[in-house]
Protein backbone atom coordinates (compact mmCIF):
# COMPACT_ATOMS: atom_id res chain seq x y z
CA UNK A 1 0.00 0.00 0.00
CA UNK A 2 2.95 2.33 0.73
CA UNK A 3 4.31 1.92 -2.80
CA UNK A 4 0.84 2.37 -4.25
CA UNK A 5 0.42 5.67 -2.39
CA UNK A 6 3.80 6.91 -3.63
CA UNK A 7 2.89 5.78 -7.15
CA UNK A 8 -0.46 7.62 -7.15
CA UNK A 9 1.30 10.90 -6.22
CA UNK A 10 3.75 10.40 -9.08
CA UNK A 11 0.90 9.45 -11.46
CA UNK A 12 -1.02 12.57 -10.49
CA UNK A 13 1.97 14.89 -10.91
CA UNK A 14 2.92 13.44 -14.30
CA UNK A 15 -0.68 13.64 -15.51
CA UNK A 16 -1.12 17.23 -14.34
CA UNK A 17 2.17 18.27 -15.96
CA UNK A 18 1.46 16.40 -19.19
CA UNK A 19 -1.83 18.24 -19.53
CA UNK A 20 -0.87 21.69 -18.31
CA UNK A 21 2.80 21.67 -19.47
CA UNK A 22 3.22 24.68 -17.21
CA UNK A 23 6.58 23.71 -15.72
CA UNK A 24 8.02 22.05 -18.81
CA UNK A 25 7.30 24.96 -21.17
CA UNK A 26 8.64 27.51 -18.69
CA UNK A 27 11.78 25.48 -17.99
CA UNK A 28 12.47 24.84 -21.67
CA UNK A 29 12.40 28.53 -22.55
CA UNK A 30 14.36 29.38 -19.42
CA UNK A 31 17.06 26.87 -20.40
CA UNK A 32 17.13 28.24 -23.93
CA UNK A 33 17.56 31.78 -22.63
CA UNK A 34 20.43 30.70 -20.38
CA UNK A 35 22.18 29.04 -23.30
CA UNK A 36 21.87 32.17 -25.41
CA UNK A 37 23.43 34.22 -22.60
CA UNK A 38 26.27 31.71 -22.16
CA UNK A 39 26.85 31.65 -25.91
CA UNK A 40 27.06 35.45 -26.13
CA UNK A 41 29.40 35.57 -23.13
CA UNK A 42 31.85 32.89 -24.24
CA UNK A 43 31.58 33.13 -28.01
CA UNK A 44 33.58 30.58 -29.94
CA UNK A 45 36.71 30.54 -27.76
CA UNK A 46 37.21 26.77 -27.34
CA UNK A 47 39.85 27.16 -24.62
CA UNK A 48 37.70 29.35 -22.37
CA UNK A 49 34.75 27.13 -23.11
CA UNK A 50 36.51 23.94 -22.02
CA UNK A 51 37.26 25.42 -18.59
CA UNK A 52 33.85 26.97 -18.09
CA UNK A 53 31.60 24.31 -19.57
CA UNK A 54 31.14 22.00 -16.51
CA UNK A 55 30.27 25.00 -14.33
CA UNK A 56 27.93 26.45 -16.93
CA UNK A 57 26.22 23.14 -17.44
CA UNK A 58 25.49 22.78 -13.72
CA UNK A 59 24.61 26.45 -13.40
CA UNK A 60 21.96 25.83 -16.03
CA UNK A 61 20.74 22.70 -14.23
CA UNK A 62 20.65 24.49 -10.86
CA UNK A 63 18.82 27.57 -12.13
CA UNK A 64 16.22 25.58 -14.02
CA UNK A 65 15.98 23.18 -11.06
CA UNK A 66 15.30 26.08 -8.69
CA UNK A 67 12.48 27.26 -10.93
CA UNK A 68 11.02 23.76 -11.29
CA UNK A 69 11.39 22.60 -7.69
CA UNK A 70 10.08 25.89 -6.33
CA UNK A 71 6.77 25.05 -8.00
CA UNK A 72 6.64 21.48 -6.67
CA UNK A 73 3.91 22.07 -4.10
CA UNK A 74 2.24 25.10 -5.67
CA UNK A 75 -0.46 22.92 -7.23
CA UNK A 76 -1.36 21.65 -3.77
CA UNK A 77 -1.36 25.16 -2.32
CA UNK A 78 -3.31 26.76 -5.16
CA UNK A 79 -5.99 24.07 -5.17
CA UNK A 80 -6.34 23.80 -1.36
CA UNK A 81 -5.10 20.22 -1.60
CA UNK A 82 -2.39 20.65 1.05
CA UNK A 83 -4.93 19.88 3.79
CA UNK A 84 -6.02 16.81 1.88
CA UNK A 85 -2.45 15.48 1.79
CA UNK A 86 -2.08 16.20 5.49
CA UNK A 87 -5.32 14.46 6.43
CA UNK A 88 -4.78 11.37 4.30
CA UNK A 89 -4.12 8.56 6.78
CA UNK A 90 -0.85 6.68 6.51
CA UNK A 91 2.87 7.32 6.31
CA UNK A 92 3.42 10.74 4.71
CA UNK A 93 6.87 9.79 3.44
CA UNK A 94 5.08 7.97 0.60
CA UNK A 95 3.89 11.39 -0.57
CA UNK A 96 7.47 12.66 -0.39
CA UNK A 97 8.80 9.77 -2.49
CA UNK A 98 6.05 10.24 -5.07
CA UNK A 99 6.76 13.97 -5.29
CA UNK A 100 10.51 13.31 -5.46
CA UNK A 101 10.05 10.85 -8.33
CA UNK A 102 7.90 13.39 -10.20
CA UNK A 103 10.43 16.18 -9.70
CA UNK A 104 13.27 13.88 -10.70
CA UNK A 105 11.55 12.94 -13.96
CA UNK A 106 10.89 16.58 -14.81
CA UNK A 107 14.44 17.67 -13.97
CA UNK A 108 16.05 14.82 -15.91
CA UNK A 109 13.89 15.63 -18.92
CA UNK A 110 14.89 19.29 -18.83
CA UNK A 111 18.55 18.35 -18.28
CA UNK A 112 18.48 15.97 -21.24
CA UNK A 113 17.12 18.77 -23.43
CA UNK A 114 19.78 21.14 -22.07
CA UNK A 115 22.56 18.65 -22.77
CA UNK A 116 21.45 18.31 -26.38
CA UNK A 117 21.21 22.10 -26.71
CA UNK A 118 24.66 22.53 -25.13
CA UNK A 119 26.05 20.14 -27.73
CA UNK A 120 24.42 22.12 -30.53
CA UNK A 121 25.18 25.63 -29.20
CA UNK A 122 28.83 24.97 -28.33
CA UNK A 123 29.52 22.41 -31.04
CA UNK A 124 30.58 19.70 -28.60
CA UNK A 125 30.53 16.04 -29.50
CA UNK A 126 29.09 14.37 -26.40
CA UNK A 127 28.64 11.00 -28.10
CA UNK A 128 31.42 8.94 -26.48
CA UNK A 129 31.19 10.74 -23.14
CA UNK A 130 27.42 10.56 -22.89
CA UNK A 131 27.03 7.37 -20.79
CA UNK A 132 29.53 8.58 -18.17
CA UNK A 133 28.10 12.08 -18.24
CA UNK A 134 24.56 10.71 -17.86
CA UNK A 135 25.67 8.77 -14.77
CA UNK A 136 27.11 11.90 -13.17
CA UNK A 137 24.05 13.98 -14.05
CA UNK A 138 21.64 11.39 -12.63
CA UNK A 139 23.63 11.08 -9.38
CA UNK A 140 23.80 14.86 -8.98
CA UNK A 141 20.14 15.35 -9.84
CA UNK A 142 18.89 12.78 -7.31
CA UNK A 143 20.53 14.68 -4.43
CA UNK A 144 19.37 18.02 -5.83
CA UNK A 145 15.78 16.82 -6.22
CA UNK A 146 15.75 15.09 -2.81
CA UNK A 147 16.67 18.16 -0.83
CA UNK A 148 14.80 20.48 -3.20
CA UNK A 149 11.54 18.57 -2.77
CA UNK A 150 11.92 18.73 0.99
CA UNK A 151 12.61 22.47 1.06
CA UNK A 152 9.85 23.13 -1.46
CA UNK A 153 7.42 21.51 1.00
CA UNK A 154 8.95 23.45 3.89
CA UNK A 155 8.54 26.82 2.15
CA UNK A 156 5.29 26.16 0.26
CA UNK A 157 3.14 27.78 2.93
CA UNK A 158 5.34 30.76 3.79
CA UNK A 159 4.94 34.24 2.35
CA UNK A 160 8.55 34.87 1.26
CA UNK A 161 8.71 31.48 -0.46
CA UNK A 162 10.52 32.63 -3.61
CA UNK A 163 13.29 34.20 -1.54
CA UNK A 164 13.55 31.59 1.17
CA UNK A 165 13.63 28.54 -1.09
CA UNK A 166 16.98 29.21 -2.86
CA UNK A 167 18.51 30.73 0.28
CA UNK A 168 17.84 27.52 2.20
CA UNK A 169 18.56 25.13 -0.62
CA UNK A 170 21.82 26.32 -2.16
CA UNK A 171 24.08 26.03 0.92
CA UNK A 172 22.86 22.47 1.53
CA UNK A 173 23.57 21.61 -2.10
CA UNK A 174 27.27 22.49 -1.88
CA UNK A 175 28.52 18.86 -1.57
CA UNK A 176 26.35 17.77 -4.50
CA UNK A 177 27.40 20.69 -6.70
CA UNK A 178 31.07 20.25 -5.81
CA UNK A 179 31.03 16.54 -6.65
CA UNK A 180 28.89 16.98 -9.76
CA UNK A 181 30.93 19.83 -11.29
CA UNK A 182 34.26 18.11 -10.61
CA UNK A 183 33.07 14.77 -11.99
CA UNK A 184 31.54 16.48 -15.04
CA UNK A 185 34.80 18.36 -15.66
CA UNK A 186 36.77 15.13 -15.59
CA UNK A 187 34.32 13.27 -17.84
CA UNK A 188 34.25 16.11 -20.39
CA UNK A 189 38.07 16.11 -20.36
CA UNK A 190 37.95 12.48 -21.43
CA UNK A 191 38.70 10.76 -18.10
CA UNK A 192 37.00 7.47 -17.31
CA UNK A 193 34.52 7.12 -14.44
CA UNK A 194 37.06 5.15 -12.40
CA UNK A 195 39.21 8.28 -12.32
CA UNK A 196 36.45 10.28 -10.62
CA UNK A 197 35.21 7.53 -8.35
CA UNK A 198 35.83 9.59 -5.19
CA UNK A 199 33.47 12.30 -6.51
CA UNK A 200 30.88 9.71 -7.47
CA UNK A 201 31.07 8.21 -3.99
CA UNK A 202 30.50 11.67 -2.51
CA UNK A 203 27.47 12.14 -4.78
CA UNK A 204 26.05 8.72 -3.93
CA UNK A 205 26.53 9.31 -0.19
CA UNK A 206 24.87 12.73 -0.42
CA UNK A 207 21.95 11.19 -2.34
CA UNK A 208 21.42 8.52 0.32
CA UNK A 209 21.63 11.02 3.17
CA UNK A 210 19.29 13.56 1.53
CA UNK A 211 16.66 10.98 0.55
CA UNK A 212 16.81 9.43 4.04
CA UNK A 213 16.44 12.84 5.69
CA UNK A 214 13.49 13.61 3.40
CA UNK A 215 11.73 10.34 4.21
CA UNK A 216 12.29 10.76 7.94
CA UNK A 217 11.31 14.42 8.25
CA UNK A 218 8.58 14.93 5.65
CA UNK A 219 5.78 14.04 8.06
CA UNK A 220 6.89 16.75 10.50
CA UNK A 221 7.28 19.27 7.67
CA UNK A 222 3.80 18.57 6.28
CA UNK A 223 2.30 18.93 9.75
CA UNK A 224 4.05 22.32 10.03
Amino acid sequence: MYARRAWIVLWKDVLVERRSKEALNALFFFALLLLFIFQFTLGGDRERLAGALPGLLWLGFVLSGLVGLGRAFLTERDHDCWEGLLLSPGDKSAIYLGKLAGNLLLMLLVEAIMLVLFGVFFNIDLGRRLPALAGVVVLGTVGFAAVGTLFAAMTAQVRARELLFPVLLLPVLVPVLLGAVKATEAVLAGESLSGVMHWLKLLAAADIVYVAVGVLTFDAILEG
Partner: protein
Amino acid sequence: MDWFDTMMADFAVQVSGLKKFYAGRPVLTEVNLSIRPGEAVALLGANGAGKTTLLRILATLSRPSRGKAVIAGHDCVKQAERVRESVGFVAHGAWVYDDLTALENLTFWTTLSSRPADGEELRTALTAVDLDRFAHARVRTFSVGMKRRLALARLTLSRPRVILLDEPFAGLDQRAGKWVDEYLAAFKAAGGCVLLTTHSFGRGLGVADRIVILAGGGVVLDTPTATLSPDDVRRLYEAHAEDPT
Protein backbone atom coordinates in the same frame (compact mmCIF):
# COMPACT_ATOMS: atom_id res chain seq x y z
CA MET B 1 -9.78 2.40 31.24
CA ASP B 2 -10.43 5.29 33.65
CA TRP B 3 -13.78 7.05 34.19
CA PHE B 4 -12.94 9.66 31.56
CA ASP B 5 -12.24 7.06 28.87
CA THR B 6 -15.39 5.14 29.82
CA MET B 7 -17.44 8.30 29.45
CA MET B 8 -15.75 9.07 26.12
CA ALA B 9 -16.69 5.68 24.71
CA ASP B 10 -20.34 6.77 24.59
CA PHE B 11 -19.56 9.72 22.37
CA ALA B 12 -18.35 9.98 18.80
CA VAL B 13 -17.14 13.51 19.47
CA GLN B 14 -16.17 14.84 22.89
CA VAL B 15 -14.76 18.30 23.43
CA SER B 16 -13.93 19.50 26.92
CA GLY B 17 -12.42 22.78 28.10
CA LEU B 18 -11.17 23.56 24.61
CA LYS B 19 -9.27 26.81 24.18
CA LYS B 20 -7.57 28.23 21.11
CA PHE B 21 -5.50 31.39 20.87
CA TYR B 22 -4.10 32.92 17.68
CA ALA B 23 -1.12 35.18 18.43
CA GLY B 24 -2.41 35.66 21.97
CA ARG B 25 -5.91 36.52 20.77
CA PRO B 26 -8.55 34.13 22.11
CA VAL B 27 -10.78 32.53 19.47
CA LEU B 28 -12.19 29.71 21.58
CA THR B 29 -12.13 30.35 25.32
CA GLU B 30 -14.05 27.39 26.73
CA VAL B 31 -15.83 24.95 24.46
CA ASN B 32 -17.55 21.86 25.80
CA LEU B 33 -19.47 19.69 23.38
CA SER B 34 -20.47 16.04 23.08
CA ILE B 35 -22.04 14.27 20.12
CA ARG B 36 -23.25 10.68 20.21
CA PRO B 37 -23.06 8.22 17.31
CA GLY B 38 -26.13 8.63 15.10
CA GLU B 39 -26.48 12.27 16.04
CA ALA B 40 -26.07 15.41 13.90
CA VAL B 41 -25.27 18.83 15.29
CA ALA B 42 -25.50 22.15 13.42
CA LEU B 43 -22.99 24.70 14.59
CA LEU B 44 -24.15 28.29 14.24
CA GLY B 45 -22.38 31.52 15.00
CA ALA B 46 -21.43 34.88 13.60
CA ASN B 47 -18.31 35.35 11.47
CA GLY B 48 -15.24 34.90 13.64
CA ALA B 49 -17.11 32.98 16.33
CA GLY B 50 -14.67 30.08 15.96
CA LYS B 51 -16.82 27.54 14.08
CA THR B 52 -14.18 26.76 11.47
CA THR B 53 -11.45 26.78 14.12
CA LEU B 54 -13.35 24.16 16.10
CA LEU B 55 -13.84 22.00 13.00
CA ARG B 56 -10.16 22.30 12.10
CA ILE B 57 -9.13 21.19 15.59
CA LEU B 58 -11.45 18.19 15.37
CA ALA B 59 -10.11 17.38 11.89
CA THR B 60 -6.53 17.50 13.36
CA LEU B 61 -5.55 20.41 11.10
CA SER B 62 -5.00 22.69 14.07
CA ARG B 63 -3.94 22.03 17.66
CA PRO B 64 -5.90 23.34 20.63
CA SER B 65 -4.07 25.71 22.97
CA ARG B 66 -5.67 23.94 25.93
CA GLY B 67 -8.34 21.37 26.58
CA LYS B 68 -9.12 18.06 24.98
CA ALA B 69 -10.84 16.92 21.80
CA VAL B 70 -11.59 13.25 21.26
CA ILE B 71 -13.06 11.62 18.15
CA ALA B 72 -14.15 7.98 18.07
CA GLY B 73 -12.17 7.43 21.26
CA HIS B 74 -8.96 8.94 19.90
CA ASP B 75 -7.28 12.11 21.07
CA CYS B 76 -7.08 14.69 18.27
CA VAL B 77 -3.55 15.72 19.26
CA LYS B 78 -1.89 12.55 20.53
CA GLN B 79 -3.60 10.13 18.14
CA ALA B 80 -4.08 12.36 15.11
CA GLU B 81 -3.45 9.53 12.64
CA ARG B 82 -6.18 7.36 14.21
CA VAL B 83 -8.57 10.31 14.20
CA ARG B 84 -7.87 10.87 10.49
CA GLU B 85 -8.93 7.31 9.76
CA SER B 86 -12.33 8.03 11.32
CA VAL B 87 -13.05 11.52 10.08
CA GLY B 88 -14.36 12.81 6.77
CA PHE B 89 -13.84 16.55 6.39
CA VAL B 90 -15.12 18.90 3.72
CA ALA B 91 -13.74 22.39 4.20
CA HIS B 92 -14.20 25.54 2.13
CA GLY B 93 -11.66 24.30 -0.43
CA ALA B 94 -12.82 21.35 -2.52
CA TRP B 95 -9.38 19.63 -2.65
CA VAL B 96 -9.55 18.97 -6.36
CA TYR B 97 -6.90 19.18 -9.07
CA ASP B 98 -8.15 21.21 -12.03
CA ASP B 99 -6.15 19.28 -14.62
CA LEU B 100 -7.47 15.89 -13.55
CA THR B 101 -10.91 14.58 -14.44
CA ALA B 102 -13.57 13.96 -11.78
CA LEU B 103 -12.86 10.23 -11.90
CA GLU B 104 -9.10 10.75 -11.67
CA ASN B 105 -9.51 13.06 -8.68
CA LEU B 106 -11.51 10.41 -6.83
CA THR B 107 -8.99 7.71 -7.80
CA PHE B 108 -6.17 9.86 -6.45
CA TRP B 109 -7.76 10.66 -3.10
CA THR B 110 -9.10 7.17 -2.40
CA THR B 111 -5.75 5.55 -3.20
CA LEU B 112 -3.82 8.12 -1.17
CA SER B 113 -6.12 7.45 1.78
CA SER B 114 -5.39 3.70 1.50
CA ARG B 115 -9.04 3.08 0.63
CA PRO B 116 -8.83 2.34 -3.07
CA ALA B 117 -12.22 2.06 -4.75
CA ASP B 118 -13.00 0.10 -7.92
CA GLY B 119 -14.51 1.72 -11.00
CA GLU B 120 -18.02 0.73 -9.97
CA GLU B 121 -17.73 2.41 -6.57
CA LEU B 122 -16.29 5.57 -8.11
CA ARG B 123 -19.12 5.69 -10.65
CA THR B 124 -21.71 5.19 -7.92
CA ALA B 125 -20.23 8.03 -5.89
CA LEU B 126 -20.30 10.33 -8.93
CA THR B 127 -23.86 9.29 -9.77
CA ALA B 128 -24.94 10.06 -6.21
CA VAL B 129 -23.81 13.68 -6.60
CA ASP B 130 -25.15 13.90 -10.15
CA LEU B 131 -21.71 14.15 -11.75
CA ASP B 132 -21.68 10.82 -13.60
CA ARG B 133 -22.07 12.62 -16.95
CA PHE B 134 -18.91 14.59 -16.17
CA ALA B 135 -16.77 11.67 -14.98
CA HIS B 136 -14.22 12.21 -17.74
CA ALA B 137 -14.38 16.00 -17.85
CA ARG B 138 -11.52 17.98 -16.41
CA VAL B 139 -12.38 19.69 -13.17
CA ARG B 140 -11.09 22.96 -14.66
CA THR B 141 -14.41 23.18 -16.53
CA PHE B 142 -16.52 22.67 -13.37
CA SER B 143 -18.49 25.36 -11.55
CA VAL B 144 -17.92 25.97 -7.83
CA GLY B 145 -21.03 23.95 -7.01
CA MET B 146 -19.85 21.00 -9.14
CA LYS B 147 -16.46 21.03 -7.38
CA ARG B 148 -18.30 21.05 -4.07
CA ARG B 149 -20.32 18.02 -5.17
CA LEU B 150 -17.13 16.26 -6.21
CA ALA B 151 -15.73 16.93 -2.72
CA LEU B 152 -18.86 15.32 -1.27
CA ALA B 153 -18.38 12.30 -3.54
CA ARG B 154 -14.83 12.01 -2.16
CA LEU B 155 -16.28 12.16 1.34
CA THR B 156 -18.67 9.26 0.73
CA LEU B 157 -15.82 7.10 -0.58
CA SER B 158 -13.69 7.70 2.50
CA ARG B 159 -16.25 5.77 4.61
CA PRO B 160 -15.87 7.93 7.74
CA ARG B 161 -17.44 7.43 11.17
CA VAL B 162 -17.59 11.15 11.85
CA ILE B 163 -18.32 13.80 9.22
CA LEU B 164 -17.20 17.40 9.67
CA LEU B 165 -18.66 19.85 7.17
CA ASP B 166 -17.83 23.53 6.90
CA GLU B 167 -20.70 25.32 5.16
CA PRO B 168 -21.66 22.23 3.13
CA PHE B 169 -24.55 23.93 1.34
CA ALA B 170 -22.57 26.93 0.08
CA GLY B 171 -22.62 26.98 -3.72
CA LEU B 172 -24.99 24.03 -4.04
CA ASP B 173 -28.20 24.14 -6.03
CA GLN B 174 -31.49 22.82 -4.59
CA ARG B 175 -31.02 19.34 -6.01
CA ALA B 176 -27.50 18.92 -4.67
CA GLY B 177 -28.54 20.39 -1.32
CA LYS B 178 -31.36 17.85 -1.11
CA TRP B 179 -28.92 15.07 -1.89
CA VAL B 180 -26.65 16.25 0.95
CA ASP B 181 -29.63 16.23 3.33
CA GLU B 182 -30.55 12.70 2.28
CA TYR B 183 -26.98 11.46 2.45
CA LEU B 184 -26.47 12.86 5.95
CA ALA B 185 -29.80 11.42 7.13
CA ALA B 186 -28.78 7.97 5.85
CA PHE B 187 -25.30 8.35 7.35
CA LYS B 188 -26.83 9.25 10.71
CA ALA B 189 -29.26 6.34 10.55
CA ALA B 190 -26.28 4.01 10.05
CA GLY B 191 -24.74 5.28 13.28
CA GLY B 192 -22.54 8.02 11.86
CA CYS B 193 -22.00 11.35 13.58
CA VAL B 194 -22.23 14.73 11.85
CA LEU B 195 -21.02 18.17 12.88
CA LEU B 196 -21.69 20.90 10.35
CA THR B 197 -21.42 24.66 10.35
CA THR B 198 -24.02 26.71 8.57
CA HIS B 199 -25.30 30.24 8.19
CA SER B 200 -28.57 29.02 6.78
CA PHE B 201 -31.58 28.71 9.08
CA GLY B 202 -33.35 26.31 6.76
CA ARG B 203 -30.93 24.04 4.89
CA GLY B 204 -28.90 21.80 7.15
CA LEU B 205 -31.10 22.19 10.16
CA GLY B 206 -33.48 19.56 8.84
CA VAL B 207 -30.91 16.86 9.40
CA ALA B 208 -29.61 18.27 12.70
CA ASP B 209 -30.77 16.83 16.02
CA ARG B 210 -29.32 19.77 17.94
CA ILE B 211 -28.19 23.28 17.22
CA VAL B 212 -25.18 24.66 19.01
CA ILE B 213 -24.51 28.39 18.93
CA LEU B 214 -20.95 29.60 19.39
CA ALA B 215 -20.37 33.14 20.60
CA GLY B 216 -17.78 34.90 22.71
CA GLY B 217 -15.45 31.92 22.37
CA GLY B 218 -17.80 29.36 23.88
CA VAL B 219 -21.07 27.49 23.52
CA VAL B 220 -23.93 29.83 24.47
CA LEU B 221 -26.78 27.57 23.42
CA ASP B 222 -27.09 23.82 22.91
CA THR B 223 -30.65 22.77 22.25
CA PRO B 224 -32.56 20.01 20.43
CA THR B 225 -34.10 21.02 17.11
CA ALA B 226 -37.11 18.71 17.33
CA THR B 227 -39.56 21.46 18.26
CA LEU B 228 -37.83 24.38 16.54
CA SER B 229 -39.00 26.01 13.32
CA PRO B 230 -36.54 28.01 11.13
CA ASP B 231 -38.06 31.18 12.63
CA ASP B 232 -37.37 29.89 16.16
CA VAL B 233 -33.77 29.21 15.16
CA ARG B 234 -33.46 32.70 13.71
CA ARG B 235 -34.74 34.23 16.95
CA LEU B 236 -32.41 32.11 19.06
CA TYR B 237 -29.51 33.03 16.79
CA GLU B 238 -30.28 36.73 17.04
CA ALA B 239 -30.63 36.48 20.79
CA HIS B 240 -27.43 34.55 21.39
CA ALA B 241 -24.99 34.83 18.51
CA GLU B 242 -25.37 38.49 17.82
CA ASP B 243 -25.51 39.52 21.46
CA PRO B 244 -23.59 36.98 23.52
CA THR B 245 -23.91 39.09 26.65
